[in-house]
């Protein structure tokens, strides 16, 4: 049960966020008046049907695109377009590993940029490779890895600089069910140790329930916050065993119903 300490720090605060895109001369409202907040150490899943604006919200928090309206505050300070906040890490929906760098050079990239001396870098990279279960693959290029391995490298590339806030955009979206469950265990294991603040985008309800403390359900496009569910399964969680519990099944059907309405709406538009 997550008890709420009185001095809890609000890490991400989003107010009246809006994004219009101009596509083929037509205005598309991708996100409309989305508001929510995420507290320190919370693992929040942003759930919604495809095309409802999840990536758009995340990209605005990451300062990759400029909002049309509304505000985003990280640690109380408004963020501005093109100026990434130092301790915010981002794991992309798409594979963005640098294909010309080996696994170890991809993972050590941010340390290299920060000028961390080579000795320390080596130790930290080796540790990260081990944590991700990639021993023996340090000198491989991304092209010769499987999708699941690439995603683990992406994860470690972001995690190695110990970001306090982690934005993840369907990082396991392209993986098969089995690999996905594997990755959930890996991610949960890493998160239990550091308890980063996480905003995790997904359209997979099972994934959201397995990982998150809270599920923010978005409506079909234009995305706005429809409902906010607490997921208070005990931690540490077992990604596989959890799915067989009664609480899981109950919460699943409750959210599923609400999500189903949005999927239906997203198809009819």
């Amino acid at each position, binding site marked *: 049960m997550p008890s709420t300490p009185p001095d809890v720090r609000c890490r991400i605060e989003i107010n009246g966020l809006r994004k219009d895109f101009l596509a083929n001369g037509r205005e598309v409202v991708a996100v409309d008046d989305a508001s929510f907040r995420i507290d320190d150490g919370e693992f929040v899943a942003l759930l919604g049907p495809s095309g409802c604006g999840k990536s758009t919200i995340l990209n605005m928090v*990451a300062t*990759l695109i400029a909002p049309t309206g509304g505000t985003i505050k990280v640690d109380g300070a408004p963020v501005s377009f093109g100026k*990434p906040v*130092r301790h*915010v*890490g*981002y794991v*992309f929906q*798409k594979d*963005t590993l*640098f*294909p*010309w*760098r*080996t696994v170890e050079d991809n993972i050590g*990239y*941010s340390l*290299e*940029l*920060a000028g961390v001396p080579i000795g320390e870098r080596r130790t930290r990279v080796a540790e990260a490779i081990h944590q991700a279960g990639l021993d023996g693959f340090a000198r491989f*290029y*991304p*092209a*010769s890895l499987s999708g699941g391995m690439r995603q683990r490298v992406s994860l470690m*590339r*972001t995690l190695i*600089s110990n970001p306090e806030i982690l934005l993840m955009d369907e990082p396991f979206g392209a993986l098969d069910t089995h690999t996905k469950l594997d990755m959930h265990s890996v991610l949960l294991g890493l998160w239990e140790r550091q308890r980063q603040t996480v905003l995790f985008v997904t359209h997979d309800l099972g994934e959201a329930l397995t990982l998150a403390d809270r599920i923010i359900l978005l409506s079909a496009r234009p995305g706005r916050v429809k409902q906010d569910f607490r997921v208070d399964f005990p931690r540490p969680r077992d990604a596989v065993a959890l799915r067989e519990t009664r609480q899981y099944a109950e919460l699943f059907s409750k959210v599923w119903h609400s999500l189903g309405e949005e999927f239906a709406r997203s198809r009819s538009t």
Partner: protein
Amino acid sequence: MRRASTLFWQILIGLGALALWEWGWNLHERLPWLIPDLLDPYFVSRPSVIFQQFLSMSCLVGRDGNWTFGVDGAFAKCMSRSENNLWIATFVTLKNTLWGFLTGVSSGFVLGLLLGRSNRLSQIFYPYITAFNSIPRIALAPIIILAFGIGDASKVVTAWLVVVFLVFFNTFEGARSVDRDHINASRLLGASEWQVTRTVIVPSTMAWLFASLSPAISFSLIGVIVGEFIGAEHGIGRMIIEAEARGEAAGMMVAVFVLMIAGVILSALVRRLQAYLLRWRPAQTVGG
């Protein structure tokens, strides 16, 4: 099995062509419809004659018709007889080709990167570049010889001119098509503008640059040869022009064969380099 039969056909065709070249002209009188006039040894010489000519031009065989190795000082004596003997000519041509290649590739890359990444610069310069590019570069060779003299500099400049545009356009395209997501990922991992350039834009553009290296080395050789045709003290190109003036078909053919071998070796080396530098690519696209 397949490879053995391929090799068999290759050798058969090679030998057949050589035989036709060597003895075909003897049949010209009787079978004029089969043997074209072009096979006249006056124009194309004969393999056996060309081989003899090669031995004497390379000083492997002395003027007296004997092998030079083993005989003290015979090779050196033969070499000193000509300012532009086969060895010196080959060396000079290759040296200028490499310089043209290196200067052309590096300046083309820098220009392509600058213009490819700056909309402002590319808007300003693009019309000039397209205009220049539509001049057949070889047409400028006489002007370059006039301006830079008949020494090595003019050959390097001619080669540079041919190579630089090729590399420029490749790099330019490459610099424009750098994956936005890679740039974003790099920024979010803490890269400054300069670090983004160094660690993302340059390496991803490199892939495009490497693709232009093979044609670049061939172009460079062409540039040097054309420069040597127009005016030179040394080099294979000059050797061809001189042999032509003397009506020596065999001499020209030796020079052409040396160029062919040099071209094959140079592009094999460049392909090796390319495969090494692009080793991170999935196997099937290396060199593609």
